[in-house]
């Protein structure tokens, strides 16, 4: 069950990333659906599970973009691991806590990616990171709600 939910969320995230992300851009900031999915999934799957989820989210993102997957996979795997690590101290998934969690992890993921694959214009990339992080925080809330009602009820 947990595996299928993770697969469905990542697949849905990949489809949204391909089909809808740039069309939903606000002030040049488009949501990163796959990165937004990693944080809530990692909360429910533990540290190693979070790293694995992150790795595959990175693989999907790199594959969709036709880019080198190594940087995406590595940065997302680290984010998944840290998401699970920091999330283990969250006892109750309150909306504001979840939002801040995803915002911080999105910033971390994009900054890690920036060091692994430096963009042409670092300033504008960092500015866009703030917008993407806020956007991700908002779109991750339904995923948290879904996982709270499904996966986190399952015994490990």
């Amino acid at each position: 069950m947990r595996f299928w939910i993770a697969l469905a969320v990542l697949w849905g995230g990949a489809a949204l990333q391909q089909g809808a992300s740039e069309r939903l851009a606000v002030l040049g900031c488009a949501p990163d659906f796959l990165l937004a999915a990693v944080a809530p999934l990692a909360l429910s799957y533990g540290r190693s599970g979070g790293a694995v989820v992150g790795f595959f989210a990175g693989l999907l993102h790199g594959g969709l973009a036709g880019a080198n997957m190594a940087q995406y996979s590595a940065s997302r795997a680290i984010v998944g691991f840290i998401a699970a690590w920091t999330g283990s101290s969250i006892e109750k998934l309150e909306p504001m806590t979840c939002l801040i969690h995803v915002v911080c992890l999105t910033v971390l993921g994009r900054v890690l990616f920036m060091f692994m694959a430096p963009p042409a214009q670092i300033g504008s990339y960092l500015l866009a990171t703030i917008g993407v992080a806020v956007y991700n925080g908002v779109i991750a809330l339904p995923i948290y709600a879904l996982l709270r009602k499904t996966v986190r009820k399952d015994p490990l």
Partner: protein
Amino acid sequence: MLGRVQTNARNAGQVDAVTSNIQTASDLIGRPVGAVSQGINDFTQGIFRAGGLRAENERLRAQEQAWSLYEARIRDMESEIEQLRALMGLPPIPGREAVTAVAIGYYPHEHRMTLGVGSDQGIRPDQPVLTAAGLIGVVHSVEAQRCQVRLISSPQFQVGAAVMGEVPLEGIAKGEGRDVLILQLLDLSQPIELDQPVVTSGYSERIPRGLPIGKAVQVEDDEQFGIRRVRVFPHVRLSNVRSVVVLK
């Protein structure tokens, strides 16, 4: 290892198996999702920009009528040029045939766009991709039903380009991030005015001469090294691109 597989495939103008499978799996729902989100986007834009869209529609109809007057004549002249080139033993000019395509993915950080046409439609690496406003990039890697476009914003993008003044000044234009290209020229003697158009120079097997790229917005002369750098603002806003044409 994955990186090596990707690099080898890309150097051959192809897409590696992992990337191809990911894109195929994502396409199953990614394309319908894209169509729905585009529909919602069009609907909301239609509400807020109805007046502007109607005026734009009228203008485009007028342009289409004007174009239809010249189309037959241009075709005759192109045919005559091809015949003369053939008589002189010169190769045909590239970019005669156009394939329309829809952008099914846009990745600004990677400076890439995915199009829904591929080798089955005759698409090959290095073919130019453009909109009505101008060049947006060149085909980088090709699958049967998809291709990846390297956009003009990419730092790896290079194309022969010319500033079209009284005397065309030719050089190499390179991508430099999202909003600008740098055109390097070796001729410092000719003046360049701002807003002069920049087009492809045609020194390529696949990219014909005269495709609009953008306009010159800044000129810097480095007399010590004898180089002139022209900042070129592209005509096309890449984030707004939906339909394109690939020239074969």
